[in-house]
């Protein structure tokens, strides 16, 4: 599990981002980070920190979201077979990415949602038609139950060969 020094450092980071000094972070606090502000999916990522309908996230929520990105090998040390699945399991990491696409949280990625996310990633550089055909092809390849949308199970199947653990993990230095 997370070490004491890691928690201290993350808390220190949390407070340095908390310009209002009220123990919670707002969306503006995140947007003040230049490298995040220029990330095409910055807003979606920021959104992942805020529970439904809320505008503030406290330290616990902050840590919870970050916990998805702990490397999976950390779990080797604390093998708890009967406990709930850890947040940084392969499945939960995939779920985090799935939620970035699933804008209306209906557990399905529709063509429309895929188009919107693609638009965020490419900006103005690709036409609507081209983007549309990218979206169509992607859904066609993934869709197995014929509902023209990608469910979480279909999402997992498409990505079964991808090294999710490596791509969705952040390593702490100490």
């Amino acid at each position, binding site marked *: 599990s997370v070490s004491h*020094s*890691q928690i*201290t*450092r*993350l808390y*220190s*980071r949390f407070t*340095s*981002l908390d310009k209002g000094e009220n123990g919670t972070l707002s969306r503006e606090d*995140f*947007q*003040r*980070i*230049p*490298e*995040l*502000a*220029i*990330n*095409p*999916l*910055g807003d979606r*990522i920021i959104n992942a920190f805020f529970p439904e309908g809320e505008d503030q996230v406290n330290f616990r929520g902050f840590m919870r979201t*970050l916990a998805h*990105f702990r490397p999976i090998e950390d779990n080797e040390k604390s093998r708890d077979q009967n406990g709930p699945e850890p947040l940084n399991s392969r499945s939960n990491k995939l779920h*985090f*990415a799935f939620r*970035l*696409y699933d804008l209306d949280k209906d557990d399905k990625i529709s063509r429309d949602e895929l188009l919107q*996310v*693609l638009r965020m*990633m*490419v*900006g*103005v*550089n*690709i036409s609507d038609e*081209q983007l549309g*055909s*990218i979206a*169509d*092809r*992607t859904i066609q390849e*993934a869709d197995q139950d014929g509902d023209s949308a*990608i469910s979480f199970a279909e*999402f997992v199947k*498409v*990505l079964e060969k*991808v090294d*999710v653990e490596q*791509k*969705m*993990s*952040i*390593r*702490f*230095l*100490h």
Partner: protein
Amino acid sequence: MEDVWLAVAARVGAVWLAAVLGLIVVPSALGVSLGISEAYMWVLVKTLEWATLRMEKGDKNPQPQELKTSTSSNGIIERDETPMEEEIDHLNRPNFELSDIFYFCRKGLEAIVEDEVTQRFSSEELVSWNLLTRTNANFHYISLRLTIVWAIGVVVRYCFLLPLRITLAAIGITSMIVGTTLVGQLPNSSVKNYLSEVVHLTCSRILVRALSGTIHYHNKENKPKKGGICVANHTSPIDAIILTNDGCYAMVGQVHGGLMGVIQRATVKACPHVWFERSEFKDRHLVAERLKEHVADKNKLPVLIFPEGTCINNTSVMLFRKGSFGIGGAIHPVAIKYDPQFGDAFWNSSKYNIVSYLLRVMTSWAIVCNVWYLPPMFREEGEDAVQFANRVRSAIARRGGLTELPWDGGLKRAKVKDTFREEQQKNYSMMLVRNGSVG
């Protein structure tokens, strides 16, 4: 009864003032050192070394030694620097993949945990505690002896050093104002210039003493000459004093109100500093014109400019404003690196105003810094102002051991421009259409 106390207080005050004048002000005015500050620094260094050893002994979780040596490894996480093209490998696979999102996702989360920019606008983290309460955020209680030393330190700093430094600062500022006003009455002549230099140098030296400053100047043969422009990295308003302690410059800056304004008005009579009204400063052409005028006169003192435009925390050098690099003439770069172990020189202007900043500086142990004068640089054929500015910036960063960041210091207060995000989007789009066909 009260008369006796008053008399005693007056006596004590007089003795105090005489001691300060005799032991500190006069020698520094003459440029002579009595060795008092060297002795103080020696005691300080020994104490801090002892403290570090104590803390390492008492540390229950010893860290591997490499992590403590340099501040660059003080990071929280291991940043993955793989560029977008490698990570989202489209050479071998058809175009868009659902997994492309992982790259942006991880980059975003990494930036949330630790980013290159916002950390530069707050004080540098120390490798080991330097016995000041303010830097004690990440360190725990170690031992009784250490706490006692810390307590003694508090008493020494607040009850002895602080009044001493305030006295010196008062003397320094008053002499500066009075001296430059007097010199300003003289008609323009070489005598006036000489006296003006004397006054500026003397008062700077007194003010450096007021901060318990220990400055090491390197490569003095490269000191900025008349008619040139001196550029340096910016950490605090003290930078100016650090540099004027060793030479005379014409300052450039906005006119302020209050005490600063009084100083500005007095000094400009003796020496042709370039003070702008706030509205004028925004007009870049006007600034450039005035500077060109000044630089063209080879008899005028070198101009001192801080091209970052704002205070950065002395771990990196941010983008230089290109204004001063398009004027022509010699640019004399200077690198200033403070040693954070003895006191934090960085002015976090969004957190502290100037007065609380100065109080914090005056209750630190000392201000220790290295100043490197670099050889003059000239704009080359075919090089525009921006490229020249970056070249100078690299030279300063390399000399001072600072990192170079391609970010603007203005990000302290302003939002980042949309163009950077559009660039990322463009790069990604180019990968999607790279294979000719899209889809």
